[in-house]
């Protein structure tokens, strides 16, 4: 499978000139199966709007797998063009106890004061809701997903994603590293056997001092985790909306010094990684 990045920014889109290398669109990743029958996305930040502009006509099935419902992870659903075509089937996955609950989380986007569409049922496409729990496995187009509970608010999921060749990565876009906690140990276990970890790194070490406890991680805490889990390849994601390309480059330089044994990558829009 191939992993493509449509958006890597955290919190709110940051469409500024000095942030264009890593990109200013909020988080959306695409998974391309070796024999793709459908389009698969991880999270639905504004990157999803851009992804939706170039869909081949023969694709009718879409899978949108969500980590949680904070605005920066769902705001790309509203302008996603495939929703407007009756031929399409769109499957949405996210943490919830029922289909109705999952739909309700998203329907807030459509309250009539927020959007002219008024309800998510407005769409011409057929929409299916797949509520997920913790440690749940499912398969889409031959790609295996396993959910991981993360440390970010009450109900944020990470995913271990395994491709057709058995290579895998862990996706933890919103997570705070708190060594020793149950969720920390759980994430270590899931990460040990994977080929790459894509993890939140919203803050550099200086800024984290005043922002710990908000559900996001810093460079040093992520590297600490990566070392303990024996991660060889680490992708940073969810950059602070104020961080310029220069700021991200600085963090990557620091990572080389702090953890030379780990290949640390700054994920950026347009990047593709094969598994």
């Amino acid at each position, binding site marked *: 499978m191939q992993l493509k990045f449509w958006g890597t920014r955290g919190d*709110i*889109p940051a*469409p500024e000139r000095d942030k264009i290398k890593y*990109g200013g669109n909020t988080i959306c990743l695409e998974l391309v199966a070796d024999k793709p029958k459908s389009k698969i996305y991880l999270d639905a930040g504004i990157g999803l709007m851009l992804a939706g502009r170039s869909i081949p006509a023969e694709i009718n099935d879409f899978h949108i797998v969500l980590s949680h419902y904070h605005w920066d992870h769902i*705001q790309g659903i509203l302008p996603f063009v495939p929703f407007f075509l009756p031929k399409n089937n769109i499957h949405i996955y996210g943490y919830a106890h029922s289909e109705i609950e999952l739909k309700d989380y998203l329907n807030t986007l459509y309250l009539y*004061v927020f959007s002219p569409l008024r309800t998510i049922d407005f769409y011409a496409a057929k929409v299916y809701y797949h509520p997920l729990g913790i440690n749940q496995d499912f398969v889409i187009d031959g790609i295996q997903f396993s959910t991981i509970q993360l440390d970010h608010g009450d109900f944020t999921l990470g995913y271990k994603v395994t491709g057709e060749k058995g290579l895998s990565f862990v996706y933890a876009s919103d997570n705070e590293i708190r060594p020793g906690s149950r969720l920390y140990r759980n994430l270590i276990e899931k990460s040990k056997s994977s080929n790459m970890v894509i993890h939140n790194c919203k803050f550099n070490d200086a800024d984290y001092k005043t922002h710990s406890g908000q559900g996001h991680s810093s460079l040093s805490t992520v590297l600490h985790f990566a070392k303990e889990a024996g991660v060889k390849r680490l992708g940073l994601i969810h950059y602070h909306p104020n961080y310029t390309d220069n700021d991200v480059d600085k963090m990557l330089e620091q990572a080389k010094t702090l953890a030379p044994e780990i290949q640390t990558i700054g994920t950026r829009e347009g990047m593709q990684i094969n598994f």
Partner: protein
Amino acid sequence: MINNLVFWGVRGSFPISSRDMLVYGGNTSCLSLQLDEDTVLVFDAGSGFKNLGENIVKTYKNKPPEIHVLVSHFMWDHIMGIPFFKPLDMPGAKIFFYSAKRDDHFSLKEIFTVQHSRDYFHVDFVELAAHLVFYSVQCYQPFKIKNALITPVVLNHADITYGYIVEFQGKKIAYICDTAPFHTSFLGTLPNPKYSEKKYMNYIGNRLVELMKGASIVYVDAHFNETEYKDKHHWGHSTPEYMIKLCNLCGVTNLFLGHHAPEHNDEFVDKMIADAKKINQNPGLRIFGAKENMTIKIVNENTTHA
């Protein structure tokens, strides 16, 4: 002092980060107008509102100014910057929000609560440090903020959308966003089903023309070009051509075309602006494409510098 009008976001509908959209910018609706040294007037709170907030914190350090925010309507691109507005975390900050009086339960305070609920954001409404005041305002009823007189006007967009006309230091500045031309109502809806669409459109259009008379700076929704507008006349957005006509009826001197569609790259918007200038027959009306971070100095003579 110099009273600057600053464009923090002029993109319409959705923020977008793209290499070919950096000239006009990707942040959504937010303009600010310095009323006096301690008072900032703001038009809308789209993603550009975040950058305005950073700027306020930088400029005023620990002594926040009074911030008055006029909200046109509640669609996402006009309110999405609110949770990221730094002055909300400043103890001692006073922030006043103004929006249309509504018959339903959706006050702006309600919107705040939804935006800041745990399901969707990591900070709860009650944790905010600033002192917040929410005002409901009524169309065509002027009110004062310091030395400025503000008149809300009804626009043709969403369920209830207001534009704002500000009279300040002998000048008139109008923020007319979002609106479709006053021909076909938004998605065919009317505030009262008994209204005749034609009469209602005429009425709100005429009121706007009357109130905008003699404005020196007007910022408008010019989302579509004429070709796109043909199929989308009920979508709530205008064209440069329509806005030029409207502004010429009012004797406007400086027109800023904004709310650029997220599908339009810089080259496309450049062409729309160039075409708009060609269409305009009136040398008394100067036309500009609104760009992010553009600052307009409002000076006392009857001139402006973009």
